[in-house]
């Protein structure tokens, strides 16, 4: 069981009235990974997270965390006992102080880390008598992160943890997160549409679009395998389809034909040369390119 995925999602669906927020999502998050869950606004990231934590009920499919069914009320309580969570809007109780919130939260978690609480209070400059309603968005995020990290959780679920923060605070939050994970070997599942931060800390990613995972894998593998092959012709680029596996997108613009492939460049090079281009250029692609190409393919 040690190698079993922490999160297993199969065919997960969520329908709100006439809107399909999640449409048959399949996903596995390995233990110990920092898993970036990328997608545009409204792609279904937050809805998926809510279903994992029992805040919304799936319309179909299954979601298991630590091997427990996320939609079973008793199992959901156990999942939350072992999970730290930061919501997208970082809303906490405005009528409490920092001390009140810690006093409220800590007793729920038998493995509450007093040592980390002290450390993060100092690092984030959070005084106990500060009223939550007077905190800036950045300070609120730091407090939410403190409350999640100190739970002694095996899994951290973070929904857009750096949304709305300035670059300095974003960096501070990400460093705290990476430092924590390195020390405590926690699994992190975080959603974002900030590609740079995903690239900075994630080792695995999934790209979700319109409620479905359109790409999953180890970030290094994706970087190694995704290639852009650009063919330049001395005439109008021909309209063609490639038989090789892994072709993610083909775009024609005048005399240029651009092919993005997820299976490396080699399998399509013979086909490409057979079209008679005057030049063939193979280039690696960034995560941003992968994201844009993958999501654009779905349009």
């Amino acid at each position, binding site marked *: 069981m040690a190698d079993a995925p922490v999160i297993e999602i199969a065919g997960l669906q969520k329908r709100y009235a006439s809107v399909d927020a999640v449409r048959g999502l399949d996903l596995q998050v390995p233990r110990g990974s920092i898993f970036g869950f990328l997608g545009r606004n409204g792609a279904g990231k937050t809805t998926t997270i*809510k279903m994992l934590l029992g805040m919304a009920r799936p319309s179909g499919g299954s979601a298991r965390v630590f091997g427990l069914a996320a939609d079973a009320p008793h199992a959901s*309580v*156990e999942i939350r006992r072992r999970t730290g969570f930061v919501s997208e809007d970082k809303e906490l109780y405005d009528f409490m102080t920092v001390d009140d919130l810690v006093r409220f939260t800590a007793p729920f978690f038998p493995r509450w880390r007093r040592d980390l609480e002290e450390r993060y209070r100092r690092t984030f400059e959070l005084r106990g008598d500060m009223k939550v309603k007077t905190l800036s968005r950045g300070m609120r995020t730091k407090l939410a992160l403190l409350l999640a990290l100190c739970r002694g959780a095996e899994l951290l679920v973070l929904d857009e943890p750096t949304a709305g923060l300035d670059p300095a605070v974003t960096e501070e939050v990400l460093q705290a997160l990476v430092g924590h994970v390195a020390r405590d070997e926690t699994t992190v599942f975080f959603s974002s549409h900030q590609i740079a931060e995903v690239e900075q800390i994630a080792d695995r990613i999934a790209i979700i679009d319109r409620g479905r995972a359109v790409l999953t894998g180890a970030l290094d593998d994706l970087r190694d395998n995704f290639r852009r092959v650009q063919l330049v012709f001395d005439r109008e680029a021909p309209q063609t389809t490639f038989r090789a596996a892994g072709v993610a997108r083909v775009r024609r613009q005048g005399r240029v034909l651009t092919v993005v492939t997820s299976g490396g460049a080699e399998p399509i090079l013979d086909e490409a040369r057979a079209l008679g281009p005057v030049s063939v250029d193979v280039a690696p692609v960034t995560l941003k390119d992968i994201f844009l190409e993958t999501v654009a393919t779905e349009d």
Partner: protein
Amino acid sequence: MLWYKAWLETRWRFAIGLAILMVSACGLVFAYPQVARLMPLASTIEARGEIGRRVQEAVQLSREYHGYIWSQWFRQNLIQMWTVFAALLGAGGLLSQASGGAALYTLSMPASRARLLVVRAAAGLGELLVLAIAPSLLIPLLSPAVGDSYSVVDAIVHGACLFLGGAVFYALAVLLSTIFADIWRPLLISLAVAVVMALGEMFVRDVWPHGIFSLMNGEAYFRTRHVPWAGLIVTTAAAAALLYGAAVSLAQRDF
């Protein structure tokens, strides 16, 4: 620690209610000598209809201190203000937090939704019990200051009738709070239901003398010294049913 949160959430509503009721109870006791002096003039009041009958009845009851306390405090001031605070304390909760976003933090705690609701309801009911009993106990305490006395047992029995009879309005507000995401609709609908029931009860009392407000003011105990157990069991069961409905409604919610 859910208790702690429930207390922090409602403490100001509770404290304001307690302060208003305490001041009102003090004012009522210390006004009695003045009321007693005006009694000879009261016989000249000419009143018609149900309201007139109630005014005349209040005058009659106020000729002696025990009747004055029941008609002015337990039948009017306390019951009206307590019902408002019952609806006020019942309104709010997870769904209204959801519109502010903090509900997700509550829901991320390892506690079932049923437990969240039970703790909140129990904290609110505890506060309402204090609001029913504490100001009423002030009356026996202060009565010697105006040269009268009032039984502690009577104060507790009337307070308990108010609490057990009126908990249904609190439970209704809790149930409505699992349906509406703001605090105003549960509050206003609960109060509207209370007003309609009070008016209905006033005008059909000759036909049906067992209304919820006469149960809450302990009229049977005042007139016959018998505690209306059957009525109190019915209202308590109704309140429990409404709270159960609230738990079911909350369990089915998506946030």
